[in-house]
């Protein structure tokens, strides 16, 4: 690979952005790339806006992704996709979980949740929107929606399905390996 790839994973604290960045870190490291991850900690489980960066290539120095530099934006929630869309390159791809989680500013009436986020983002970027929550419920565990999204993203990256499944097995909590693998397969097949 010539160019360093920059991926951003964004979402609401508690949605599994950190676990996802670890899976992406795992697969890229396993493939022999130089990889840098960085994470916004602290608020990760407290419902705040969370962003993590994954950069991989032959040699990577800077651990963060700058505005206008991301190749892929993986968003676990619509509003968070919109919040970070300006970090994408011109031809960047957004993979977004088509779900709405109201921030407290909206709940208390101090702000309004923007309408038609996916439609508006689609005017400027390549957007892949997936209702991963509905898919996850079909599998019997709503919490694995994030692994479905990883499956969707995986389809657009140069690693084999088996490599992905291996990393997922190593990264997720042991009790949830099977359901996470099923979720990945669902995302990968549907993508």
């Amino acid at each position, binding site marked *: 690979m010539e160019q360093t790839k920059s991926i951003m994973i964004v979402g*609401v*604290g*508690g949605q599994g952005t950190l676990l996802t960045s670890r899976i992406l870190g795992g697969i890229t490291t396993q493939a022999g790339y130089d990889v840098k991850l960085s994470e916004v900690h*602290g*608020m990760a*489980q*407290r*419902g*705040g*806006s969370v962003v993590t960066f994954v950069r991989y290539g032959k040699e990577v*120095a*800077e*651990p*963060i992704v*700058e*505005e*206008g*530099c991301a190749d892929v934006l993986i968003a676990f929630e619509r*509003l*968070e996709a*919109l*919040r970070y*869309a*300006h970090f994408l390159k011109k031809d960047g791809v957004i993979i977004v979980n088509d779900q*709405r*989680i*109201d*921030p*407290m*500013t*909206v*709940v*208390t009436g*101090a*702000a*309004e*949740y*923007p309408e038609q986020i996916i439609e508006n983002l689609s005017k400027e970027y390549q957007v892949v929107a997936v209702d991963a*929550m509905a898919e996850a419920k079909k599998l019997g565990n*709503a*919490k694995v*929606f994030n692994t479905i999204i990883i499956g969707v993203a995986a389809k657009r990256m140069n690693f084999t399905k088996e490599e992905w499944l291996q990393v997922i097995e190593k990264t997720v909590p042991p009790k949830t390996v099977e359901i996470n693998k099923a979720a990945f397969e669902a995302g990968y097949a549907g993508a």
Partner: protein
Amino acid sequence: MAINRTEYRDTSIGVITSGIPYQYVREALPDASVLKLGLVHPLPRKMIEEFASKVETLYVVEELEPLIEEQVRSWGIKLIGKEIFTIQGEYSANMLRKAILKQEIVTKEPAKVPARPPILCPGCPHRSVFSVLNQLKIHGAGDIGCYTLGAVPPLNVIDTTICMGASISMLHGMEKAKGKEYIKDWVALIGDSTFLHTGVNSLMNMVYNQSSGTVIILDNSTTGMTGHQDHAATGRTLKGDPTFAVDLEELCHALGVQHVKVVNAFDTKLLAETVKEEVARDAVSVIIAQAPCALLKSNVSKVKCVALPEKCKKCGMCLKPGCPAITKQADGTVKIDETMCNGCGLCKTQCKFEAIETVPIA
């Protein structure tokens, strides 16, 4: 690897740097020669003089104040530094590309979107305490921990936060400055971990100096904010070995507090009665509001809350404590996100119409 090291590449640009800016330099100027300092004081003068003599243009790239730059300049070495780099904020590769390579980098304006500030987790026992205090219109002198989030809407309880232990001292100070009546609608709020860190001495001082304030210890059996470290009252060392556990109630008694009440943080009715009683009391009192942190692995809920739209009167009472798992839908009824709910049941206690029930998790 040497603590301070030089990396000679193209010598038309040489950069002295240290720490994270080194990564930005490598990203923006991969061909430049670099002197990477592992130790910025004392500076390796000979090494720097040699490096400076070998490169054509020398830059010092350091965030914030020109610590390295000023010292190197004082030795008569010519360099470029803060005249082109800011003394504020974090640096980045793009910032160096603009400043050193004069590259024009156009970025898009971020979309104007509602902020998503951090909030207390679903199932957090602090939310229950704040919701009671909010209903009683009680002010809180706050402290350092997750519960500092009780300052923001919709909870709006905490009015002051300075440093660890200051909640108790602030309340005490307010009373000394403004009199007993002034703090009749105030409490000090401090977590169990913070209390053991620097609250004990302040509480002792309150008793000694005949205060009448009420202190609520938010006892969630851990150090929540920084990631579940054990503390002197958990019965485990930081390595997880069993050890002596301080009994908070006994400790307060030992400091001379006569009135110590232990209440389940989720028993909103009893908590409200206790708070009313204790703030009215003409003596120091402590309420220990107990319930474990919702994220403790030993505290996985066996139930979750479910909203029953057919019974919902759309009054919005359940939304008042600001639990992120509950959202109002277009028709005015509420929905509880099953992946987020930790089953604490605070929303259920707010509902007068039995439109929320707890069900076992399959």
